[in-house]
């Protein structure tokens, strides 16, 4: 299956990646090749095969409801790009965006 430039633009937006026209052309070609390659999977008959998300055939382990973490805001925000009054700053979010 081959992808169109419009597909690539849509994917790039979903993944929040910026792309020039040249990038889009390049990725359209590369992604089409890769998607074509992975479509080899269709050769396999997977009727009645359970999909598996994990190689471990185990159930999830749970933790006790205990507060174990302390305030480390200063350390965490020391490496933040932009903070003020303990808040992380981002360009204005228009409500409902």
């Amino acid at each position, binding site marked *: 299956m081959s992808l169109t430039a419009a597909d690539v633009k849509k994917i790039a937006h*979903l993944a*929040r990646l910026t792309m020039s026209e040249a990038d889009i052309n390049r990725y359209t070609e590369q992604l089409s090749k890769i998607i074509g390659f992975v479509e080899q999977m269709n050769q396999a008959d997977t009727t009645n095969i359970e999909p598996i*998300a*994990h190689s*471990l055939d*185990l*159930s*999830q*382990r*749970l*933790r*006790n*409801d*205990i*507060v*174990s*973490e302390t*305030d*480390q*805001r200063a350390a*965490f*925000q020391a490496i933040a790009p*932009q903070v*003020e*009054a*303990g*808040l*992380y*700053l*981002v*360009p*204005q*979010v228009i*409500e*409902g965006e």
Partner: protein
Amino acid sequence: MEWETVIGLEIHAQLLTNSKIFSGASTAFGAEPNTQACAVDLGFPGVLPVLNQEAVRMAVKFGLGVGAEITKKSVFARKNYFYPDLPKGYQISQFELPIVGKGHIDVQQEDGSLQRVNITRAHLEEDAGKSLHEDFHGQTGIDLNRAGTPLLEIVSEPDMRSAKEAVAYLKAIHSLVRYLEICDGNMQEGSFRCDANVSVRRKGDKLGTRAELKNINSFRFVERAINYEVERQIALIEGGGKVAQETRLYDPTKNETRSMRSKEEANDYRYFPDPDLLPLVVTDELIANIRQDLPELPHQKRERFMKQYNLSAYDADVLVSSRALAMYFETVVQESKAQPKLATNWIMGELSAALNKDNLEITASPVSTTQLATLLQRIEDNTISGKIAKTIFESLWNKEGEVDEIIEKKGLKQVTDTGAIEALIDKIIADNPDNVAAYRAGKEKLFGFFVGQAMKASGGKTNPQQLNELLKKKLADN
């Protein structure tokens, strides 16, 4: 053709755990920004989620409370989208296999009838942080303290046909989660939130396109927002337009809803099973264990109250709306041995009014169950009249002492001595010869006048039944 409204609700209840759903950070409300966001909540590189077992127990509790099937093997999935209050770029939620399956709740309507609302599912997920839109040099501030707080999202079927029904359902769930002690129900702090899916159709037609209403964080707003939206949709269709499938934000100050996202920008959430979390298995043993600890639920209590105390559906419904209120009522009835109806009237009347006025919860009532019980006993044994009891209630509210003490101190004991009452009546008859004559001539309305005079003369302390009887007798004499 007549229009029909179709409403389904998605309720988000924050679960009352100590720590977050996937981390050991505290869930306490109101801390300094980002001081309760640990590395896991902030989505630092390399961190991993570990599920809080209490959140699982609470979800199961809810499931049992709505008679739902508990999914033995449920799965956590990632809902992928970018937003500054969502640190990892995905929300850990449940998609195809939620922990709570189909259930239902019977909701009491205004006319006392019960309406069944079906619950599609309820699933566990993590809450997002908060965007603070105050101006930081044209920027938005992000506080991630709330990120990772456990949420139970409760999704109903589109079973409701009016804003009133939707509110009644919302109240029923609100009451249930507090009974189960899994959510504090605080709508102001956002620990109990609701989105409404609203559509309209002409009766008999198939479902119309729905709009999702957000930001409706009080019972009143839910009703108003839905009513506004219904009118908007009907006007739109009647004007030849089409309803768009979109998310709309309710603005309580303008009382209107407005579009948030348009259809073409509809998000593609790319759900897939979270590879960091294996399937969640709930054993039969755990379910049995939780079932055993389940309290009496609101609908069970309501039925019992109606039967055991002979209450009306309306009274029972009000009393069971909170577990604490119901408990207060039962304690008062048991301690006073008073008529349940009398206790109901006092609790739903004087007490509720006073609590409302001072904005207090029943658990913080200045009048204890023992005090109210004693007060009701004194009414029933004729020590005081109902009217005087209201004065005493006020004194109790103001912490002026115990019931009998106040009666004694203020001399509020009811006059029941026939001789004394007769003397009182004789004097009134003597003082008002014209009115007596008119009454005896057939103007029976004047009876109230004589009662009023007698009460006034005795400072309200005369036993009303005795007074009535004696007064009738005396006036009929001659």
